[in-house]
């Protein structure tokens, strides 16, 4: 079955090519079938491949499909080979599965849009690039996918390009992630220079052999890769692009900025975990950055008015959780949360999209309301996935994945990280409940004028169900002790760990206490929000919060302003000042010289005959004078 690995990224890319070349000439139905169908087909192949992989795991737990070499330059050889191991299997299933559902949803969501085929072409390209990223066996191919998803993110954020604000948001996303991408590239070059290869498996074997734990080069390389991950996954300090990326269509926000692209950073760190284990300071930084980000984004989410911006900050926050997990070396926990987050966040975004579509593209939470009775399917799936986000105990997938992260943090002795994550759970509960209350409860704000059709409802339902039952693959010992996921992923994270993983699970007693605390946090957050934001208190929106504080939170703690003052303005000022630099001066000098010569020359053309006559006579005088001089010189010479 691994022979068909190539088909998984190929099918969406083929869809892209077809739609890019002929999309305008095809009917909407054809475009929808090609666009969603290609990803659907890829999902089917992925399922089949995964099934055969799980049923009969290949030797060394990895199936490699060797594809032709891409290039070989100065000792660096990159090839198109794909490698399927447990981690890649999980990622691949998430990408194709959730991707297909979102594409199906898009066929109805974007039905009225004039650029229907362009949308699906971009989405297909994105899914193809993401699959390349996930299945790549060497870093160069991974970088290809990485850049591809970055490009598609830009194209899709700025999809409605006729509004310049969307273009600005797309550029902002691209530029900020570029910073990370540049660091990633430098890191890759560093790895190649020192270790001689960019094949991931080779790297993971050579690195521990070449570098002792904590060596400078390892730290630098890991930091550079981390910077790349920070950019793509919108963590501090490169998180400013994600809220603005909500300018794109909602399916885009669901697919790219919730379920898949932003998880690429998490995937990268998980993939190159050996390298990070060789650099403990960097690993610690990963955790700290994750913790800070999740708290900061949590506060910001509470103060947002736009329904999608709440979800954007929520995504940043949840990615922070994954980073915390990575930071303590709990790789499987991070991937588990990545998976459940993909389910419930995509469901939330698609639900928000259904609301937006039904309410004439209204995004403002203060104008929406009371949609509970009007849009029941949307409401219930939204509640289910919101509950998962908040981590409602026992019945949601989010609870299990978050709890695992908290438990692992505690187990590794990172008590500060645990505390931050715990506060984060409270905040998550607050903003999630606020979101649900403002949009669906209370008096009807805007009457919805359309009911979602089947193609919107089915993905919502599927994802909603997954948000509930998706966590049942990994249960802590105190609740059943099922380790299907982490067991499956273990070979990907095996290998001589320089840093000892958490050996056994904590004693059941500690575990129950931790779970109780987690449950308390989530339920407590929900209760607080109910207290503050329930419809009966319509008059007090954010009670007891000074305007300054609210503005600070709403603007994401002012990062945009800081960046603008510290970086953008000086740079543009420098650029403007440099517009007339030396080289320009040289060119302009030539022009000025020529113009000057022209002016002077044309000044001699007075049109006055006497002037010309005078010129001739003066010329004759000079010529005769010269003749006289020459004659004198010659005569003198001759005389001697």
């Amino acid at each position: 079955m691994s022979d068909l690995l190539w088909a998984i990224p190929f099918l969406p890319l083929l869809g892209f090519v077809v739609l890019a070349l002929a999309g305008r000439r095809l009917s909407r139905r054809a475009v929808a079938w090609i666009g969603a169908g290609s990803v659907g087909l890829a999902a089917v192949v992925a399922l089949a491949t995964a099934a055969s992989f799980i049923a009969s795991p290949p030797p060394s737990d990895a199936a490699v499909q060797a594809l032709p070499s891409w290039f070989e330059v100065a000792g660096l050889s990159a090839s198109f080979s794909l490698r399927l191991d447990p981690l890649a299997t999980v990622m691949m299933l998430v990408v194709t599965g959730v991707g297909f559902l979102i594409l199906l949803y898009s066929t109805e969501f974007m039905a009225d849009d004039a650029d229907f085929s362009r949308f699906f072409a971009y989405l297909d390209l994105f899914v193809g690039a993401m699959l390349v990223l996930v299945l790549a066996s060497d870093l160069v191919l991974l970088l290809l996918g990485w850049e591809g998803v970055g490009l598609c993110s830009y194209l899709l954020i700025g999809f409605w390009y006729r509004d310049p604000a969307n273009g600005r948001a797309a550029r902002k996303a691209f530029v900020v992630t570029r910073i990370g991408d540049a660091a990633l590239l430098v890191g890759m070059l560093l790895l190649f220079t020192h270790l001689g290869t960019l094949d991931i498996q080779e790297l993971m074997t050579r690195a521990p052999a070449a570098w002792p734990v904590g060596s400078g080069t390892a730290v630098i390389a890991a930091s550079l890769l981390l910077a790349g991950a920070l950019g793509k996954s919108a963590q501090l300090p490169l998180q400013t692009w994600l809220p603005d990326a909500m300018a794109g269509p909602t399916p885009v926000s669901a697919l790219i900025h919730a379920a898949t692209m932003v998880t690429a950073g998490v995937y990268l760190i998980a993939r190159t975990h050996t390298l990070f284990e060789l650099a403990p300071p960097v690993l610690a930084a990963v955790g700290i950055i994750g913790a800070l980000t999740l708290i900061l984004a949590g506060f910001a989410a509470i103060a947002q008015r736009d329904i999608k911006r709440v979800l954007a900050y929520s995504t940043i926050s949840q990615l922070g959780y994954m980073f915390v997990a990575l930071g303590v070396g709990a790789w499987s926990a991070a991937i588990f949360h990545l998976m459940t987050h993909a389910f419930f966040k995509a469901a939330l975004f698609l639900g928000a999209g259904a609301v937006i579509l039904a309410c004439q593209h209204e995004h403002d939470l203060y104008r929406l309301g009371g949609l509970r009775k009007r849009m029941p399917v949307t409401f219930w799936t939204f509640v289910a996935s919101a509950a998962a986000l908040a981590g409602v105990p026992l019945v949601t997938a989010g609870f299990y994945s978050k709890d695992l992260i908290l438990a692992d943090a505690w187990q590794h002795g990172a008590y500060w990280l645990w505390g931050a994550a715990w506060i984060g759970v409270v905040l998550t509960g607050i903003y999630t409940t606020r979101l649900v209350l403002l949009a669906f409860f209370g008096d009807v704000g805007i009457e919805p004028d359309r009911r979602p059709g089947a193609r919107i409802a089915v993905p919502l339902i599927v994802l909603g169900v997954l948000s509930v039952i998706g966590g049942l693959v990994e249960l802590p010992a105190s609740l059943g002790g099922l380790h299907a996921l982490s067991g499956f992923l273990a070979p990907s994270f095996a290998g001589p760990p320089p840093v000892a993983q958490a050996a056994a699970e904590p004693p059941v007693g500690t575990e129950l206490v931790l779970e109780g605390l987690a449950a308390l946090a989530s339920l407590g957050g929900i209760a607080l929000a109910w207290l503050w934001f329930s419809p009966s208190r319509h008059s007090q929106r954010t009670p007891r919060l000074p305007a300054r504080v609210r503005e600070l939170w709403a603007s994401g703690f002012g990062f945009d302003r800081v960046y603008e003052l510290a970086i953008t303005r000086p740079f543009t000022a420098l650029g403007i000042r440099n517009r007339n630099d030396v080289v320009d001066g040289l060119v302009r000098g030539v022009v000025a010289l020529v113009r000057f010569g022209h002016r002077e020359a044309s000044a001699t053309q007075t049109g006055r005959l006497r002037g010309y006559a005078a010129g001739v006579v003066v010329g004759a005088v000079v010529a005769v004078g010269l003749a006289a001089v020459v004659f004198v010189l010659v005569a003198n010479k001759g005389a001697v």
Partner: protein
Amino acid sequence: MSSVPLEHVLVLAALLFALGVVALLVRRNAVFMLLAIEIMLNAAGLAFIAAGARWGQPAGQVMFVFILAMAAAEVAVGLALVIRLRRLFGTVDTDAAGEMKG
């Protein structure tokens, strides 16, 4: 025959030529400018004749004939231009015909 020193004749020619130059520069009237040119041509012809007399050869007079022919042609065309000038601008002031500037 006479024995006028050559340089005396040539100096006479130079004097006449200089007078023609001054006339050309100082006058605004187109006809006067043509007259000045005639004076200069005449002076040049005198110089040629003097040189021919010095060597006793007809070449000097031949050159003078050519100068004469050229002067005739030039005067014809020049006067036609003066007539044109007069028709266009109503005057023979050369300063009035200064439209081809720049």
